[in-house]
């Protein structure tokens, strides 16, 4: 199976993209030296595997604890890929998780989903 699994590190989030279950997850802290480079791997995987599995149901969950501004831009680029897949008839849902009382992560989630047409939820844990 062509899964993408990256262990979390001090400045990079964990990534768990499981093609068989369709569960895609990114979480933790994100402030790498080069966020664009780090997230490009994720974007490439999505660009390749979403289209190749058009009838599959995918569920993407962000469980971010902290992210810097360059990660924020890269996350937006991921959301664009998911939105495009949805508009092309793909089956995809988005969950944005925030730790209870973490207003910054909650608000950033609300800002990210503004204008999205793909099904999405903002959830606390």
């Amino acid at each position, binding site marked *: 199976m062509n899964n993408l699994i990256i262990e979390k590190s001090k400045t990079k989030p964990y990534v768990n993209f499981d093609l068989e279950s369709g569960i895609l997850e990114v979480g933790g802290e994100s*402030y790498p*030296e080069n966020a*664009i480079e780090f997230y490009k791997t994720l974007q490439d995987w999505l660009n390749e595997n979403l289209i190749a599995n058009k009838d599959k149901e995918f569920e993407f969950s962000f469980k971010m604890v902290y992210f*810097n*501004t360059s990660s924020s831009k890269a996350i937006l680029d991921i959301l664009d890929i998911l939105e495009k897949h949805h508009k092309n008839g793909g089956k995809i849902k988005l969950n944005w998780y925030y730790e209870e009382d*973490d207003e910054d992560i909650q608000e950033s989630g609300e800002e990210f989903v503004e204008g999205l047409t793909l099904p999405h939820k903002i959830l606390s844990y």
Partner: protein
Amino acid sequence: MIDFDLYDYYKNNKDNNIILSFKGAVSQEILVEIGSMIRNKFTMQRDIKKIFSVFVELSQNIMHYSAEREYSQKENTNVGVGIILFSELQDYFYISSGNLIERKLVDRIEGKIEKINSMNQEELKEYYQEQRRLPQEDGSKGAGLGFIDIARKSGNKVNYDMTKIDDDHSFFVLKVKFKKGE
């Protein structure tokens, strides 16, 4: 170097309420270390996540944009040299950063910060979202969102200062203020 009075330097730091400072190449490794020191030191602060976030943006500004570069063997890349300091007064914390920039960039940076300082929180939020939509500048590792994020997280104006060093360089100082919380 033999003439350098370390006590004088220490006392100057102390008199200016500087609780933590670093001068040198701001590598990712240094950022992580100072970052965890801050998190440990400010655990009681309500705004610790915001303070940490401003620290990361200031440090990565130096890392990516300082005109003074130093090769880091470990990271196999050139990292920016600069200074970061934390000071603590009765009611406020300050995080400051300083680094060399090319003088030809001074006007552009000043313009950016002045624009941000003229905005309220709602306008900053919109401006952030608008700027985040712009394509990445070629070869840049940053998103060009740092100043806006700093203004949003600190809830205060971004203080800055430019000092001409020579024909080609200025020293660029950013100072961010946080009100102390419980």
